């Protein structure tokens, strides 16, 4: 693989960029692989990448029913943070955040990880106590977060209205190393790296059936023929339930539409990521200048990537109250993504009733920030057949025991 660098660009410029090679190959499926990962979204690609990098398993196919990165990892609000309450959450999200720090170098692909800082506004006393609790928990976890005053909030976000009157800002939980990254670049960077390790990223290849014999997966039927495999990883976000049904088990999951929108690009006016959970809104500004705004989740099962209007409306109401100047800015585009919500709103990285079949799903509204950590943990599970510490708590049997991983205290809304 030709390495990317400023020199490579200069060299190519002289020949009108005719010498660039493909970022990833586009091969036909082979009849068999050591491992098949279903889903070439961020989590699936990261799983494959760490299978190769950490466990030396490279005879891998990543099957994608559409175009790679076309699911939630290509339609989210790109927020990265690890200021979680429960140890098991903090562990995997902080692992992910730290991997984001070096991802551009690891993948030789600039994913534009931008640790510009992330604020969670406390606008009620109750919320303030909740965030202080998280900060204390993060202290024990070694996750760098702090509680800051309204004045410090105003310094970080000059356009914010901290005086209410309805919901004055009482302070905020601040993670200085939280931020954003370019979502497509994460997908493309992983795909390029996987391809470079000899893995097959196969797009427009939809899995139509999962073949199994006495409790073990033998392969999959796809729109591009049957492919057999020794191990199977299901990493398909919104469609986890559909795949699980093919594999013959049921998940504690419901698929719903999550809304987001961007504004027209304007000159930089908000440099950090701000989440205001009391009023249900979060916002950041992309390097292109668009305000990237996350809305709520429709409360009903939905597989269309379209959403309802009232959640957009609710979010914008809150944001105008918090950032009055955005009233005259215009909404450029709105869209929906299908998120899979588990019983405790925390993910599942787990063995399944099928011996050599593993599943990674249920990231709900917060999957992007977890991609590298999720892939890291899933790869370990697929490679060893047993979860490592990062995945251990996220098994799908916790619901039977009532062993919840409940973050609702830390994040009241979509994150």
């Amino acid at each position: 693989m030709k390495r990317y660098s400023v020199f490579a660009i200069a060299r190519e410029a002289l020949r009108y960029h005719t010498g660039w090679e493909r970022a990833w190959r586009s091969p036909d499926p082979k009849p068999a692989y050591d491992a098949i990962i279903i889903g070439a979204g961020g989590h699936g690609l990261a799983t494959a990448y760490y299978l190769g990098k950490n466990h030396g398993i490279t005879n891998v196919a990543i099957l994608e029913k559409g175009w790679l990165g076309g699911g939630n990892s290509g339609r989210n609000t790109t927020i990265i943070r690890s200021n979680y309450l429960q140890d098991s959450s903090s562990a995997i999200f902080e692992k992910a955040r730290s991997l984001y720090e070096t991802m551009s170098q690891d993948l030789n692909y600039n994913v534009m990880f931008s640790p510009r800082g992330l604020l969670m506004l406390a606008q009620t006393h109750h919320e303030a106590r909740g965030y202080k609790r998280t900060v204390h928990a993060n202290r024990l976890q070694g996750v760098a977060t702090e509680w800051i005053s309204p004045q410090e909030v105003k310094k970080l976000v000059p356009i914010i209205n901290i005086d209410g009157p309805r919901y004055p800002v009482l302070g905020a939980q601040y993670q200085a190393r939280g931020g954003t990254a370019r979502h497509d670049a994460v997908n493309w960077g992983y795909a390029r790296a996987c391809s470079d390790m000899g893995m097959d990223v196969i797009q427009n290849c939809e899995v139509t059936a999962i073949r199994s014999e006495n409790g073990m997966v033998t392969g999959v039927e796809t729109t591009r023929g049957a492919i057999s495999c020794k191990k199977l990883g299901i990493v398909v976000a919104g469609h986890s339930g559909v795949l699980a049904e093919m594999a013959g088990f049921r998940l504690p999951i419901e698929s719903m539409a999550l809304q987001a929108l961007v504004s027209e690009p304007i000159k930089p006016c908000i440099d950090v990521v701000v989440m205001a959970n009391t009023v249900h809104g979060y916002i950041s500004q992309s390097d292109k200048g668009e305000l990237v705004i996350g809305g709520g989740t429709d409360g009903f099962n939905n597989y269309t990537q379209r959403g309802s209007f009232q959640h957009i409306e609710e979010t914008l109401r809150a944001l105008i109250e918090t950032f009055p100047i955005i009233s005259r800015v215009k909404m450029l585009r709105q869209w929906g993504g299908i998120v899979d919500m588990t019983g405790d709103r925390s993910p599942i990285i787990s063995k399944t009733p099928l011996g050599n079949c593993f599943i990674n799903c249920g990231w709900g509204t917060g999957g992007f920030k977890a991609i590298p950590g999720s892939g890291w943990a899933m790869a370990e599970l697929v490679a060893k057949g047993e979860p490592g510490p990062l995945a251990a708590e996220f098994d799908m049997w916790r619901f039977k025991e009532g062993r919840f991983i409940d973050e609702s205290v830390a994040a009241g809304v979509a994150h």
Partner: protein
Amino acid sequence: MLILECPYCGVKAEETELQPGGEAHLKRFGPGSSPEDFEAYMFARKNPKGVHFERWRHAYGCGKWFLAARCTATLEVFGTYPAQSPEPPADLVNKIKAKRPEWKGWK
């Protein structure tokens, strides 16, 4: 932005007048039930990409809960009926079968 007709007051209510309530026809398992049954009651959901039977409350109207059969892939609504129904009405099931021959049934 869905419209569902409330079977009680006959209003064609729009989504903002309604409150969604998840999968319908769940059987409650209480004390003495097996861990599997209780887990299934609490968490296991059909979550089909297709015909879904679900609960809605006419929250900004008559306040009654009702049930709806709706396709989660096209958002087509096949019908609504009272919450006091142990299972979907036969005529509704037939209507869906006619429209969706490939449908495996509600159970």
